């Protein structure tokens, strides 16, 4: 018998198993390659693009999520490859023993199956690389992502190919080497090729119904394969939880932070040029560019008292807040701290151009997510800095001060703020006015009563302001807010669906496991059928096995996934009851989908005639 003839024939003889193994391997390689290519082009592309537009705080959340998901997808890929090659080669242990028993030398039998392993691995990896590139090409050319595309990095192909080929080889060789060490009689024993445990000492669920009893005991008996699939699916569910729950929680949290910082249903009153500039500064998330060399302190932008008085007279306005916006050069002030009698310097003398916003602390309409605290009434020498400014110009901002026009201000808080992408400083309004010799604000934020008709109030407001100054305009901040929230939502959606391929590969592996379970129990199922079991009873036994495996891994994966998301990736998350329902919906849909698909071999098997199963 030729050394390649036997492996080819053997692979063709096990059509279903070979197809499942090849398919799982292909999808697994493709999913990992796709993730790398896609993240590079879109995912990390987003963060690198967004690095110039997103605030540092948001950028950090995105990049840590992508990194975590990327590591998990790679881990899932490695575990899948190890599982399917183990499954494939473990099922050949019996044949190994039979051929040896017929007198074939150990080395020759080993080479037969080793060539099979190489063939399947090579073919699976090649097909996977091709499918990975094809999928990336198809997805990247979808409308929503076209703006971020760049040429794929072809070096990922050999990287993934070699990594997975080596993984597969290591894990596939293990059962093969084990089989080579066994005597022919030991190799023929079902103990070896199904990974069955010795004996049946454990009478699990002896009081339960027959289907549950048979299902659970078979799982216990097939310990090694069962433990592998549970561990593997737990990692898949961990990945799913991090990407789905994480994305939804992070989306809700970041959206809520942006909404609170910008203010929902808030109007902006300003000179039309100043208003447009402020809107651009708010919309830098979604790629808007503000005007360079803009003179914020142009006297024409000042909002006179007469206009503010008009605001007091219009019904439907709940509150309004004056702000003075300008641009300043900010200097970091170095500080010192003491530790173990040693003086340790903090910071340097860095400088940065930043937007400076003067506010009346007691009247601010925004609610920022702040590390530290906001400004207090009457303390003129305090400042709150945006997260990006804190990252680029300070080492430990809360222990440092900043200098602006020779005035030193203590940094009391760091806020997550989309305005100018976090390159912003909030200071007391009076102090900023006196520094710039300005007596009037240049923007006013107006909050309307939620009960009024907003269009009517806006129209009335516009009319009254026109009487004072025809250039004064009313802007709705909701549009800018929606742009920001929409952009954040799109990024989180991308992250949420990155593990879709891993889910498909996991489902294929679960089907492979069910095929193993069917093969191991096929004779007993035939006996049960001959004794009067209906085909649906057999499907029920296999469905129970699939459910036990799925639920145990679901529980483990979700627990670790939620812990990872809330404790590592996202601090102070916003979790509403709708968030919980949405997450539960997605995860249960994934679980249910996997369960239904895993039943396919069971249904197919149950339809077979009894004698065909027995033969």
């Amino acid at each position, binding site marked *: 018998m030729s050394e390649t003839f036997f492996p080819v024939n053997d692979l063709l003889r096990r059509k279903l198993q070979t197809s499942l193994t090849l398919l799982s391997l292909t999808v697994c390689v493709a999913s990992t390659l796709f993730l790398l290519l896609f993240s590079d082009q879109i995912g990390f592309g987003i963060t690198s693009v967004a690095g110039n537009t997103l605030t540092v705080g948001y950028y950090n959340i995105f990049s840590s999520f992508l990194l975590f998901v990327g590591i998990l997808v790679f881990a899932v890929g490695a575990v899948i490859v190890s599982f399917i090659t183990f499954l494939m080669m473990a099922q050949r242990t019996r044949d190994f023993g039979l051929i040896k028993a017929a007198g074939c030398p150990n080395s020759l039998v080993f080479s037969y199956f080793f060539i099979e392993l190489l063939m399947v691995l090579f073919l699976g990896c090649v097909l996977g690389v091709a499918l990975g590139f094809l999928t990336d090409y198809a997805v990247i050319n979808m409308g929503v992502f076209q703006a971020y595309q760049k040429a794929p990095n072809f070096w990922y192909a050999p990287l993934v190919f070699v990594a997975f080929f080596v993984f597969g080889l290591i894990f596939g060789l293990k059962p093969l080497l084990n089989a080579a060490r066994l005597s022919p009689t030991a190799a023929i024993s079902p103990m070896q090729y199904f990974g069955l445990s010795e004996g049946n000492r454990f009478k699990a669920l002896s009081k339960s119904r027959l289907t549950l009893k*048979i299902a659970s005991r078979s799982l216990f008996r097939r310990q090694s394969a069962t433990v592998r699939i549970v561990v593997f699916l737990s990692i898949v569910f961990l990945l799913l939880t991090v990407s789905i729950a994480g994305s939804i929680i992070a989306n809700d949290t970041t959206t809520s932070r942006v909404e609170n910082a910008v203010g929902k249903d808030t109007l902006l009153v300003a000179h039309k040029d100043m208003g447009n500039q402020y809107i651009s500064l708010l919309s830098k998330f979604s790629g808007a560019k503000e005007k360079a060399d803009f003179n914020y302190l142009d006297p024409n932008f000042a909002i006179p008292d007469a206009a503010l008085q008009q605001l007091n007279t219009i019904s439907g306005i709940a509150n309004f807040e004056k702000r003075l916006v300008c641009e300043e050069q900010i200097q970091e002030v170095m500080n010192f701290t003491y530790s173990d009698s040693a003086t340790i310097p903090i910071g340097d003398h860095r400088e940065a151009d930043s937007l400076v916003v003067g506010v009346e602390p007691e009247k601010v309409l925004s609610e920022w997510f702040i590390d530290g605290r906001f400004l207090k009434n009457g303390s003129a020498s305090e400042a709150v800095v945006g997260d990006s400014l804190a990252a680029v110009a300070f080492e430990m901002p809360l222990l440092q001060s900043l200098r602006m026009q020779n005035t030193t201000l203590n940094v009391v808080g760091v806020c997550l703020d989309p305005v100018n992408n976090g390159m912003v400083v909030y200071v007391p309004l009076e102090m900023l006015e006196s520094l710039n010799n300005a007596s009037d604000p240049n923007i006013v934020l107006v909050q309307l009563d939620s009960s009024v008709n907003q269009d009517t109030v806006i129209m009335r407001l516009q009319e009254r302001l026109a009487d004072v100054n025809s250039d004064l305009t009313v802007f709705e901040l909701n549009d800018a807010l929606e742009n920001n929230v929409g952009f954040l939502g799109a990024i989180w959606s991308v992250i949420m669906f990155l593990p879709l391929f891993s889910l498909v590969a996991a489902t294929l592996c679960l089907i492979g496991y069910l095929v193993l379970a069917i093969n191991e129990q096929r004779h007993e199922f035939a006996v049960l059928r*001959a*004794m*009067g*079991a*209906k085909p649906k009873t057999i499907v029920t036994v296999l469905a129970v096995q699939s459910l036990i495996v799925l639920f145990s891994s679901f529980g483990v994966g979700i627990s670790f996934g939620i812990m990872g998301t809330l404790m590592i990736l996202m601090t102070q998350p916003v979790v509403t009851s709708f968030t919980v329902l949405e997450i539960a919906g997605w995860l249960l849909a994934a679980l249910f989908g996997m369960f239904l698909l895993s039943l396919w071999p069971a249904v197919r098997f149950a339809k077979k005639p009894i004698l065909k199963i027995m033969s």
Partner: protein
Amino acid sequence: MPMKTSDLVVATHSLCKAYQLGEAEVEVLKAITLNVARGEFVAICGPSGSGKTTLLNLVSGIDKPTSGRILVLGQDLAVQDEDFLAEFRCSNVGFVFQSYNLVSTLTVAENVAFPMEWVRSPAAEIERRVADLLETVGLQHRANHFPAQLSGGEQQRVAFARALANDPELILADEPTGNLDTKNGQKITQVLQMLKANGKTVIVATHDPALMQLADRTVCLEEGRLTSKNE
């Protein structure tokens, strides 16, 4: 004297069974006409490959004929669907295989009990009947053991207990002593003797002279045809 149809447990007419092996068709049973009356003990003899197992498979509803009629307890099995046949086997037929075929993940007691669970017998009745059946086959002390912990003869006795679980009208046994030594074979013969005494209809495929002696009638199969009848 001709028998009434209602007295017949098994009635076959021109029963044929062929298998497709590649392009070739192999005829295993050729125009078998056989009637078995209620309470009758029939032995089927014949060389290996003569069609004994196939005939038992057709009578039990495990397999379907290619042509001909087969009535078992008044039901035409050739036209029934899988679910009906499953229920029919569970309630009316007790099948004993040559290779025992116990479910390895279930204990002896559970192996005997499971056909009763499918017909939804009350738990207390199942428990009582399992104890009775195991006592009948002399294996009450093995109730909580798994099949792998029993000898071949013990496994075959459990298989008989399982076949009797739902008190079926018809017992089919395919070479029940074929894998056993003389001593264990005798124990199985005693069980069959007891079934005969209890008025069960029994069809046994066998080479065992002891079982043929026990039979009311022996029919022989050769190359798929009934060649002789010894009534």
